[in-house]
């Protein structure tokens, strides 16, 4: 049986145009949020329990 190739097969990635200010901000916000939730697991738990409450109500 032939296996599907999952090797990265491109000649280049990216380009010489820079990130826009909006993209920069979105990335920065994303990593900031990620850092907060990884350093404070109770945030995740709180979110989960909130979700659970919604389902039950």
């Amino acid at each position, binding site marked *: 049986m032939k296996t599907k190739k*999952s090797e990265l097969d491109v*000649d280049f*990635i*990216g380009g*010489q145009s820079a990130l826009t200010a909006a993209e920069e901000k979105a*990335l920065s916000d994303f*990593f*900031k949020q990620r850092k907060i939730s990884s350093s404070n697991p109770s945030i995740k738990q709180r979110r989960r329990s909130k979700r659970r409450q919604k389902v039950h109500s």
Partner: protein
Amino acid sequence: MKKSKEIGLDFIIDKLTNSIENVLTGDSFATDISILKSSDLKSLSKKNKWQFNWTEEFEQPERDVYKLTIVNNSTIIQGLISLEVKSDHVYMHLVESAPFNKGKTKVYSGVPGNLVAFACKLSFQRGHEGNVSFLSKTQLVEHYEKTLGAFHFGGRVMIIETKAALKLINKYFQSQ
């Protein structure tokens, strides 16, 4: 006044030895990744069929350009990567395989994957948990999702997170 590039690395990159594969023979060749020198720029012109302006990339003070070469054959560049270490992740500006490693007639395979795995490794070294972002063409989003484990953040932006980064490092830098 001409701006001179200051390479301000404050860490030592241990020797990154891995391999790329000769497409015709299937033979593997161990590779090194090292910082690009100004003396390398001469051979990286559009005349020599490099698609991007690597001199411009090299001259950006916030970016570091690395070259992939075969061990004991450091004069022939197999591929290049331009990286910027941001405050929370590594941004991959540009990756380009050498002209002879492009398309259906490429000599070696594994060049871009090897370089992306290096970006992930650098991200871990800099305390950014392997997080790497880059811009993608719309039609390549799915390809990057499959081959790199990247996720589509939105618009043109893609992100390789910790789990996918570890997978890539294990795949391309098994010996370390």
